[in-house]
């Protein structure tokens, strides 16, 4: 492994920072694209908040409430700093899905019938269904961006779809079902040239230290905490300040208002205008801790570690008959989706489970993408910083035996 993985020692020690592997020493966790495991420091940070600073934020004038508000707002500015954007451009949400829904309502409801949104065929349902619901509400037209035979965005077709009615391009940073990395830079430049905004679904990007919204020049960027080593119940939506300034609120309640009377209410500036009610305070603090933890890893080392493991995996697969890697020829995040000629993916996953090897099987909330490949389900291996060569080797052995049993 050493050529691909200069710091495999460092990364094999990482595993010990994750309490779940203390509980399940034999666990081979290959489902990080669904949710990542959490390092101890994240769990500690959340707990410390409850034990030392717990109070509601923004409204209290006593010491504990001030400490809680500072901790919460420091979490926001810490995350903003890591993403290279301003604090008041970040909205805390429940997760990536809620962030996209927020845009689909708050921004989307101003669209007119006939306006067009281009949605790629690589997308997770979270970046499809909110646009379909918007289409129903407003008569907006959803145009799917097709894929070429390799499973990559069909760039000429995309360019042809961009037109004067195109208002938004909704595109993932990495396809959760196949790992495919779309040509974001070209796509975003082309969209902007056509006068359209771009929403990037960063759910599978942040965890692998992909470019943030600033580097991408994305107009909207959404991701989930639980997929980047953070807690459940928290996510982030970035939106450019000039956009946010003009967006109406979506949800109403405390925190997001300036004055309320039955005659009419006025709203607070962003980001508060978009954070109605008590926010996920402890979770925001946990997420900031997770992102700082991730940022402390050397990006190049992390990349070498994760792609090195993926290379070892896919090299090993060549020895097994009837195994197809979906979208194999596209540049991919450390996600490998498998289809088996002679076995049902569910049955394979079941056999792996008997050896504590956790993989995801099914359609991965990406029905259109699976339909593109003409398969009804696939088995997905997704990698994270804590995975080891041992994980890959155990997976390969178990997969080989499962395919034999099921043949």
């Amino acid at each position, binding site marked *: 492994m050493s050529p691909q993985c200069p710091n495999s020692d460092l990364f094999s020690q990482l595993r010990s920072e994750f309490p779940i592997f203390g509980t399940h020493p034999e666990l081979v966790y290959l489902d990080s694209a669904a949710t990542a495991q959490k390092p101890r420091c994240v769990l500690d940070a959340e707990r410390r908040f409850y034990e030392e600073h717990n109070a509601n934020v923004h409204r209290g004038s006593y010491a504990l409430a001030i400490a809680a508000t500072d901790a919460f707002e420091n979490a926001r500015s810490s995350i903003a700093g890591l993403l290279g954007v301003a604090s008041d451009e970040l909205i805390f949400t429940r997760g990536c899905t809620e962030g996209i829904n927020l845009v689909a309502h708050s921004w989307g409801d101003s669209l007119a019938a006939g306006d067009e949104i281009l949605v790629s065929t690589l997308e997770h349902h979270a970046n499809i269904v909110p646009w379909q619901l918007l289409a129903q509400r407003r008569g907006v037209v959803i145009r799917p961006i097709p894929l070429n035979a390799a499973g990559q965005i069909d760039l000429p077709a995309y360019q042809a779809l961009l037109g004067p009615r195109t208002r938004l391009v909704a595109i993932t940073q990495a396809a959760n079902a196949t790992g495919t990395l779309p040509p974001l830079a070209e796509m975003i430049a082309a969209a902007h040239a056509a006068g359209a905004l771009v929403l990037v679904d960063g759910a599978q990007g942040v965890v692998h230290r992909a470019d943030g919204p600033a580097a991408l020049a994305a107009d909207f960027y959404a991701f989930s905490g639980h997929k980047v080593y953070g807690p459940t119940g928290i996510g982030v939506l970035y939106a450019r300040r000039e956009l946010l300034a003009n967006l109406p609120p979506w949800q109403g309640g405390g925190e997001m208002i300036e004055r309320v009377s039955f005659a009419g209410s006025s709203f607070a500036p962003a980001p508060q205008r978009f954070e109605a009610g008590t926010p996920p305070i402890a979770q925001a603090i946990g997420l900031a801790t997770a992102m700082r933890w991730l940022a402390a890893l050397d990006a190049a080392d992390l990349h070498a570690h994760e792609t090195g493991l993926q290379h070892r995996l896919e090299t090993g697969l060549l020895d097994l008959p009837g195994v197809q890697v979906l979208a194999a020829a596209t540049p991919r995040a450390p996600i490998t989706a498998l289809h088996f000629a002679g*076995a*049902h993916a*569910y*049955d394979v996953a*079941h*056999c792996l*489970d*008997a*050896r504590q090897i956790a993989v995801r*099987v*099914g359609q991965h909330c990406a029905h259109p993408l699976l339909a593109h490949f003409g398969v*009804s*389900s696939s088995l997905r291996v997704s990698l994270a910083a804590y995975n080891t060569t041992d994980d890959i080797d155990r997976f390969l052995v178990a997969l080989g035996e499962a395919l034999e*049993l*099921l043949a």
Partner: protein
Amino acid sequence: MNPSYPHHPFGERIDKAALQTRLEAAQGWEAKNRLLVQLGRELPDWPATLRDDAHLVSGCESRVWLHGEYVDGQLRLYADSDSRIVKGLLALVLTAYCGQTAEMVARFDAEAWLQTLGLQRFVSASRGNGLRAIIRHIREYR
């Protein structure tokens, strides 16, 4: 009897006691898996023409086709799946229900039985959906 559904041995030649013995001998999850695959092989595939939407049970992770009817008060039950392990599970279900009266079908607690066989994993809230959908279907035959 409808000749188009392939004949199978479950609930006739193979009864609950026989299966219980085999499952108890299979220690551990991996061994149980092997046994399910083996049982699945003993359940013949349906002809492609019958694997249609009318027979499909929705709510399962893999596709499951089911047919049941009462003949002389006894349930005749046929099942198929594109998953070998689910076919194994179906073999168990067929064994439990085939040849039973409607009253026994209504009363039999298949989930509890699978638990006693060490197959609780299939009965949990998340996995159970498929199994529960199958049992609900079976109870609706008249």
